[in-house]
């Protein structure tokens, strides 16, 4: 037996370890260091109107969902209709952070798939994303009336997470003054 002939097997075993890790590692279980802290500040132009600015001050006094999305992100396509439906049913404030995207593509996305956001911040460089500790797209933050981050969802929001976890939390936060 030649050592060279073992190489494919070794490569494959490394792959199995990686996949096993992928299986056991539930991204939703990673606690965010930002939870319980004030939302990081930002000021960015909006996607639809480059002249208009949006900042974290727009969130103040409201319970707001802050959803990180991009037109190039496949998982966002899963998540998006759920947000659109939710925005239609409830009057929850939803803002978007359009992350490392092209403006024309982002605008088209909103036109084709619907726009659940009051406005989306256009973060083309990704600095705001870094400040917010964004791992990847999609991610969603729930910010309370005082501007404190109370919940973070890594990866797409599913109907189950939205209605079982996020929605009850929003209702609870709405009652806080």
């Amino acid at each position: 037996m030649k050592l060279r002939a073992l190489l494919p097997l070794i490569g494959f075993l490394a792959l199995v370890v990686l996949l096993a890790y992928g299986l056991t590692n539930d991204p939703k279980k990673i606690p965010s260091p930002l939870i319980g802290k004030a939302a990081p500040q930002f000021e960015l132009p909006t996607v639809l109107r480059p002249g208009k600015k949006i900042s974290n001050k727009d969130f103040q006094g409201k319970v707001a969902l802050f959803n990180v999305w991009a037109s190039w992100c496949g998982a966002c396509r899963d998540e998006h209709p759920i947000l659109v439906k939710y925005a239609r049913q409830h009057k929850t404030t939803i803002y978007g952070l359009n992350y490392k995207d092209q403006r024309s593509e982002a605008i088209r996305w909103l036109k084709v798939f619907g726009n659940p956001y009051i406005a989306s911040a256009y973060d083309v460089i990704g600095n705001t994303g870094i400040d917010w500790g964004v791992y990847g797209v999609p991610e969603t933050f729930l910010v309370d009336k005082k501007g404190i981050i109370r919940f973070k969802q890594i990866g797409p929001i599913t109907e189950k997470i939205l209605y079982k976890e996020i929605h009850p939390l929003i209702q609870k936060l709405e009652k806080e003054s």
Partner: protein
Amino acid sequence: MIPELGHFALILALCLAIAQAFFPLAGAQLNKTRWMAVAKPAARGQFIFLLISFVCLTTSFIQNDFSVIYVAKNSNSLLPIQYQISAVWGSHEGSLLLWALILGIWTLAVTLFSRHLPQAMVARVLGVMGLISIGFMLFMLFTSNPFDRLLPAAAEGRDLNPLLQDFGLIIHPPMLYMGYVGFSVAFSFAIAALLGGQLDSAWARWSRPWTTMAWCFLTVGIALGSWWAYYELGWGGWWFWDPVENASFMPWLIGTALMHSLAVTEKRGSFKSWTVMLAILAFSLSLLGTFLVRSGVVTSVHAFASDPTRGVFILAFLAVVIGGSLLLYAFKAGNIKSAGRFSLLSRETLLLTNNIILVVVCATVLLGTLYPLVLDAMGAGKISVGTPYFNFMFSILMLPLVFLLALGPLSRWKKQSLSGLFDSVKILFAVSILSGIASYFILGTISWPVAMVIALFTWIVGSSFLNLYKRVQNKPDKLAALSTVSLSFYGMFFAHIGVAVFMMGVTFTSHYSEEKDIRMKPGDTLDLAGYSFQFKGAKEVMGPNYRAQEGTIVISQGNQELTTLKPQKRLYLVQRSPMTEAAIDPSLSRDLFIAMGEPLGKGEWSIRIQYKPLIRWIWLGTLIMAFGGLLALSDKRYRTKRKNSETQVNPA
């Protein structure tokens, strides 16, 4: 009662699969003819019980038996009958059953077309296929039983996902699975050959038609999926480098490499251990694809509802099947002697280059698909690599491949003189360059990639015809001699031209497409790419299980009215999900694609209008490739030569 029958049939099929795996494999090792003789009847019996099981599930769907969980989740009494049938494979459990059934079909085919093969070889091939089948049936019975009951029964089903209520989705999964699972035959042949120590040109000759057949199905399956995504997902793209698309594309790339490498092994006796490796890889990647879709490791538009226990099971199965074969390879590959030396410039070298490029492309795609997972494992978090990476890497790597594609068939085995090759293609080379330059002026826009692709198109098509001409140039009646050229040559001829056609489609679509997202009120007209589109308004129409807003758009060119398109925005009533049903005016030279966006009030709509030149060439090209594969399969030499091989290769 019927679901229980199906469940029971599945268990019986499993028992037969165990017999099919154990006795023939052991018999071949111990040289017991009677044990080996179990292979064929067990395989056929397994197929029959799988078929019964599948028919039972289908019956439950047609009878709207909502006491079966799987039916209740994926069907509805209002669902049209053709979709009730295709809903059988519309979700996880049923598509596994389809997978198992298709494996049964391939196994049956092996039992029918292996009369000329030595008994030990057949026994081993069927034994290995039995092992694979056991894995899938255990998976189904333990984690994903489609026959599980729901008590009390649901009054109504939750309906099939509206995206899947479409003709393309009726045939796309079966085709794709025929391809995926078809590679299990080549895989089993490779494992059988390793076990028996019989890696010779006879083995390559037996594997070739099976590989080509699976490749044809996979090609058509992928093309269908892409076509479906184009008209059904509503945004006019045709390939998204989505993890699940990649999962089907990787076995295709390796399968393509395998077909070429098998040719070398059969004709020249070289590349043996490489060919075995490719056969193992092609099927391993099919299994990996299944894992990626089912386990939820990588997020994707296609991923079925994921479940960690399923993921663990498939991963263990992967580890056993792939790990086991690679271990076997490690033990046996050292003894493989490749015959047939070849010099630096020869058809062997060119085919080796083809293989290396295809494997590198596949590795690139695999890396891009798993990269998010790797980063995640290193603590960097989940990210998406995205289309730019894939498009860039893919075009850079494929360009040399399509250039060499023209030279391979024109070169000799063993040794090709550089000057001879140069002499035969110099005129063609000049013509190709000229065609690129000419197109540069004709199309009027400065775009080097397009000019280059047009030159390559001329290069490939020209070389194919040049090669055909060479086959008949010394015959007195050249036209009549065309019919004496072998079908496998024509297979290559068409497959290569298919590549050229595909490439043109991709390039023109990505460079010259035009599109507008526009707000239109009834009576508004938009001019795009020389066509004018007039919006006449939208009205409500009812479908069997949906309600739709249907727009009417009249397309004219100059003063002449061309056609009227009626795109729809559908609301499926059970799942309350909106769907965009695009309307398309297709032709060979361009598609006009219209999709309804959102209603904006007062009869106004946001409408997306696209002009897509040569987009049909993308699928036409893939169909031509698959047609080439079919021609190669029909070559009569497989039948005659297989008979000859009986005397050469003794049943050990």
